[in-house]
């Protein structure tokens, strides 16, 4: 045996920075995939659709639930809202002429709640009447809200210019009014609205203030939420005979509303009259502590039950609705997650299927590489890198589509969509992971081929 024979070093005489090796492996992978463009594209589609549907669906779901929660928050999570509802059986009899339907919340109810429940902090009663408001010859269809001066604190909906009406004006049932946002421009296009007069039926009201627009931003924080909310964000004004809320609102003292319009509202329907007598349309109860909301709700509910023969009222608890909405959203997210998992699984199986075919097809190449010194792990890396490249490319395309689709939906369907910042990252990482998981088996199969057999393969 000659000493001249090179000493055997199984680690190889040359070690290159592994970064360069990686770069070359990736380049090689890209080259192989590029050679089979159509196949690679088709392989990737499963992942593309999986990832993009996950992101898009989450965005839509998030948008929908945000809207819903927003609406609920606007009602105020510390609030309990009582509304008059026309009992269904009365609706039928109301077709009889000159029958006055009496229902709804009464001043007594309000007094009872105020007097007996200590956890109640503020109580805002209101009457909503739909009327035409006149200024000179201009006529605007309007919701007239008879309420109390502390309305604005309670609802966090404040006067923008001028002032709200005062306790004295309420007591003396003066004809003053505060115009809702947009109404001054409609009624007084040239003159200054404050100090002007508007006419409803036969009475004139002095304009003392203008409300700010109903803010959306103020609602987003929980802190503001409890003093937020407006009349009918969650639905039409119930049982006013006027139906759905008008585009504009005008605020007058509750007492003025009572005196000027009375408690009986007459509605003309085709050929017959119907009249209904409602003292209060709505009362909002603000509970001091959010922990007491549920308890207070039950007490009010019992109280109302014992004093009303019919169910001519409804109790809306925004906090409860909010919790329900959150629960719904959680379930929705879980369902989406399951769909996502399934679609990525399908995509992954697609990749595995193609990779297995590719490995068989490239048996000869594997044999050559093995003969020329490739170790098993080199072969594994080669195929694994191809898999990961495929699924990551799919992931990137999917993320791009997934970010674009909600925009398109928002634009055309006017649906709010929110892409949560983590969803593209999660979707992308999962798709890359799918590449690894579903690439391992084909890669192992390639690496475990006998080089002699592989070279003989045609």
């Amino acid at each position, binding site marked *: *045996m000659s000493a001249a024979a090179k000493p055997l070093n*199984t680690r190889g005489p040359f070690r290159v920075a592994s970064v360069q090796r990686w770069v070359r492996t990736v380049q090689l992978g890209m*080259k192989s995939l590029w*050679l089979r463009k159509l196949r690679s594209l088709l392989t990737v589609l499963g992942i593309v659709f999986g990832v993009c549907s996950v992101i898009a669906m989450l965005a839509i779901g998030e948008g929908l639930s945000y809207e819903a929660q927003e609406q609920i928050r606007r009602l105020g999570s510390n609030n309990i809202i009582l509304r008059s509802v026309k009992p269904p059986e009365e609706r039928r009899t109301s077709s009889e002429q000159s029958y006055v339907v009496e229902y709804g919340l009464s001043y007594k109810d309000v007094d009872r709640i105020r007097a007996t429940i200590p956890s109640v902090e503020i109580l805002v009663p209101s009457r909503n009447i739909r009327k035409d408001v006149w200024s000179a010859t201009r006529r605007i269809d309007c919701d007239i809200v008879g309420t109390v001066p502390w309305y604005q604190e309670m609802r966090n909906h404040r006067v923008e210019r001028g002032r709200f009406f005062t306790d004295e004006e309420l007591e003396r049932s003066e004809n003053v009014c505060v115009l809702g946002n947009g109404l001054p421009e409609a009624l007084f296009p040239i003159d200054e609205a404050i100090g002007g007069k508007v006419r409803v039926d036969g009475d004139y009201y002095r304009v003392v203030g203008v409300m700010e627009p109903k803010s959306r931003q103020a609602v987003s924080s929980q802190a503001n939420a409890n003093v937020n909310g407006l009349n009918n964000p969650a639905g039409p004004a119930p049982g006013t005979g006027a139906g759905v809320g008008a585009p504009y609102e005008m605020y007058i003292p509750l007492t003025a509303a009572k005196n000027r319009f009375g408690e009986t509202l007459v509605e003309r329907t085709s050929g017959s009259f119907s009249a209904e007598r409602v003292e209060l349309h709505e009362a909002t109860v603000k509970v001091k502590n959010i922990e007491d909301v549920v308890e207070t709700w039950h007490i009010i509910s019992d109280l109302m039950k014992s004093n009303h023969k019919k169910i001519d009222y409804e109790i809306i608890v925004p906090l409860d609705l909010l919790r329900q909405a959150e629960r719904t959203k959680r379930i929705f997210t879980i369902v989406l997650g399951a769909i996502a998992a399934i679609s990525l699984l399908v995509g992954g199986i697609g990749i595995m299927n193609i990779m297995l075919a590719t490995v068989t097809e490239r048996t*000869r190449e594997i044999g050559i590489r093995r*003969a020329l010194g490739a170790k098993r792990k*080199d072969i594994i890396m080669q195929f694994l890198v191809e898999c990961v490249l495929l699924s990551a490319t799919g992931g990137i395309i999917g993320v791009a589509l997934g970010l674009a689709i909600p925009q398109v939906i928002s634009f055309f369907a006017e649906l709010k969509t929110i892409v949560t910042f983590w969803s593209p990252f999660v979707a992308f990482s999962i798709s890359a992971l799918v590449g690894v998981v579903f690439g391992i088996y084909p890669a192992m199969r390639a690496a475990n081929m006998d080089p002699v057999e592989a070279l003989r393969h045609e």
Partner: protein
Amino acid sequence: MPELIAQLVDVRKEYMMGLVLVEALRGLSLDFHRGEYITIMGQSGCGKSTLLNLLGCLDRPTTGQYLLGGEDVSTLEDDELSQIRGMRIGFVFQSYNLIQQLNVLENIEVPLYYQGRPEEESREIAGRLAERVGLGDRMHHRPYELSGGQQQRVAVARALANDPLIILADEPTGNLDSTSGSDILNVFDELHGQGKTLIMVTHSDEVSERAQRVIRLRDGKVERDERRCKTA
């Protein structure tokens, strides 16, 4: 006598073909020296391919020893065998076995890549080898753009890339017309002249004429092992 670079000691190789046990090699003992030009001949089924696979470390003997460059490689692990193939052996196959998606230079670089040689260095070596086999103007062509003879020359260049101890050729002219075939054989002669060790399996007496030593196999045994002084 030049140094001994490869030695087979009573090598046997058996494998299962379906349910039948095939004794491909039945006790071979052969010595190979540096700079030899050897052809292995024999009828099909005599164990030529099996012998070549063993010599090329693609396979391990069932019993017996294979010493390559002074080390017993018959018991090495798969990864170590890969390493030795990459470092010590150059393969030339009958059907060229180039990788289709790589161009000439890249094909020549493959063994260097698996040895972990830096890219610039392997690029340079590959370029030099391509020139040497007369493909300096075709370095960026893909295999399908080349003739059979040219492809086989790429394969020879690839076999030389790692400056191997032994070059193993499995009927390198089998798929070539006589002109291209003799081109390749001329390249081999040249390599032999430069002191390379060549082991070639062939069917053709004409081809084996060029060799210095002819080993004839029959039924997994050495039938004849003749050395001759190369004339002319």
